[in-house]
């Protein structure tokens, strides 16, 4: 257990007992079923200064993601690919327990797990974002700010990033006389698939989807599973200090694929503004 555990909410013993009782009967304290996710509200293109943006509310968890596009040097070993850089910050607004300062362990994990879901699914075809091979490439920054936390920041942040990237318009850069010039034109990002992450937690022997902060405070173990548009698995992350059986993992993986498809369809129906 790390010191960062202190930042999670404290649930009273009676409340915990109530939660366990409800869960063992297949119900949750907010009235949801075990495999039911909270409502998702997505607003795209809310930040006009960004190249793409989205605000996602997953229950009371709220995240804003913004896309900014620049040019820069490619990463070492990836000379012929555009660069994608993802960061996340839990703002001091997010809960009485969050404080300003450098990201703690949990926030670093959050950014890296969301990044893995986007990167490993090849959501953005980075091969198409090269200006001068080995020298100058598009650099796509996706920065996420968590405004309010009520559990499952992994999925809320992931949906915000995906929605922001889908809504984004990239500037068209050209090389003129050896210099990078912004032509003022815009282009759609080269999107190949829509990755959707689904987080489940185990409380006792029961696995539930999309935990609230209160449920996370009582969880034994957590797993985040990302699938792409073909229903293939592209990223996984087990978290927290408990364990899963192989059966629990395989079952969660099946549910993540089916639920992921539902949420992907929801994202696809969004009116594309901007």
């Amino acid at each position: 257990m790390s010191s960062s555990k202190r930042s999670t909410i404290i649930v009273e013993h009676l409340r915990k007992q109530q939660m366990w009782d409800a869960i063992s009967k297949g119900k949750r304290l907010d009235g949801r079923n075990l495999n039911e996710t909270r409502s998702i509200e997505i607003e795209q293109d809310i930040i006009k200064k960004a190249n793409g943006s989205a605000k996602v509310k997953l229950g009371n968890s709220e995240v804003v993601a913004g896309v900014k596009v620049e040019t820069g040097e490619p990463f070492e070993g990836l000379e012929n690919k555009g660069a994608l850089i993802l960061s996340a910050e839990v703002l001091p607004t997010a809960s009485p327990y969050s404080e300003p300062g450098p990201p703690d362990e949990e926030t670093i994990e959050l950014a890296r797990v969301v990044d893995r879901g986007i990167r490993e699914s090849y959501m953005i075809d980075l091969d198409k974002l090269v200006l001068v091979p080995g020298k100058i490439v598009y650099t796509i920054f996706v920065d996420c700010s968590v405004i309010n936390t009520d559990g499952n920041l992994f999925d809320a942040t992931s949906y915000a990033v995906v929605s922001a990237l889908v809504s984004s318009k990239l500037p068209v850069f050209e090389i003129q006389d050896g210099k990078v010039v912004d032509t003022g034109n815009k282009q759609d990002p080269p999107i190949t698939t829509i990755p959707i992450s689904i987080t489940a937690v185990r409380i006792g022997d029961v696995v539930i989807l999309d935990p609230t902060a209160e449920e996370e405070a009582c969880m034994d173990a957590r797993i985040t599973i990302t699938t792409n548009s073909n229903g293939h698995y592209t990223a996984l992350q087990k978290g927290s200090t408990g364990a899963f059986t192989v059966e629990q993992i395989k079952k969660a993986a099946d549910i993540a694929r089916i639920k992921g498809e539902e949420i992907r369809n929801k994202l696809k129906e969004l009116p594309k503004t901007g």
Partner: protein
Amino acid sequence: MNQTKNLIDENGRRTDGRNPDELRQIKITVGVVKNADGSAFIEFGRNKIIAAVYGPREVHPKHMALPDRCILRCRYHMSPFSTDTRKNPAPSRREVEISKVMRESLEPALILEDYPRAAIDLFVEVLQADGGSRCAGITAASIALADAGINMRDIVSACAAGKIDNKIVLDINDTEDKEGGADMPVAYMPHLEQVTLLQLDGILTTEQFNECLDKAICGCNMVYEIQRQALMQKYFGNETELKEEQ
């Protein structure tokens, strides 16, 4: 996205000559750091990793102590000379994340309630990295914890499986990790049959996912045998009937 190089040749051998279901050579030496309460050195292919445990001992700063149990602190760190290009010695985001998942993969095996108000500090130093260093690190760390005499429910064994040339294989090495299709590190408690670490990067179908998970657990069981022999070697010496497996 698409691999160009062949990572499996016409005889079914991988770039380092292994079969698809073969682990790299693993050698574990127990008790290598004299000052530590427990330690282990693992050579896992070309990975060379030291794990050292101090504790249970008093917690500093004191406010971190818990009244009912011990805290486990874990630091995974790569030496600057451990990689092809020099690694900045400051902890990277990757190392912070691995330290966290490593701690979470070991905690289920430890009976921390036995040491209230204390801390166990675990240091995992990668001297040479060769792909799969988190699995090798967890494997060494759980032996170091056992060597420190900490009460445990089970040993944690770790091994990755992955996809290369569209085939599921055991124990991905550095080249296969960089050029292959998927990498799934798994840590497992062999007696309790529980998965304590699970990660994935890469694309797998449902069938491949299930095959990959089963194969990784198979690998963990193989790693466990080697861990057990290393501990037997230290504590029972050559009297053991177990011969080191090649």
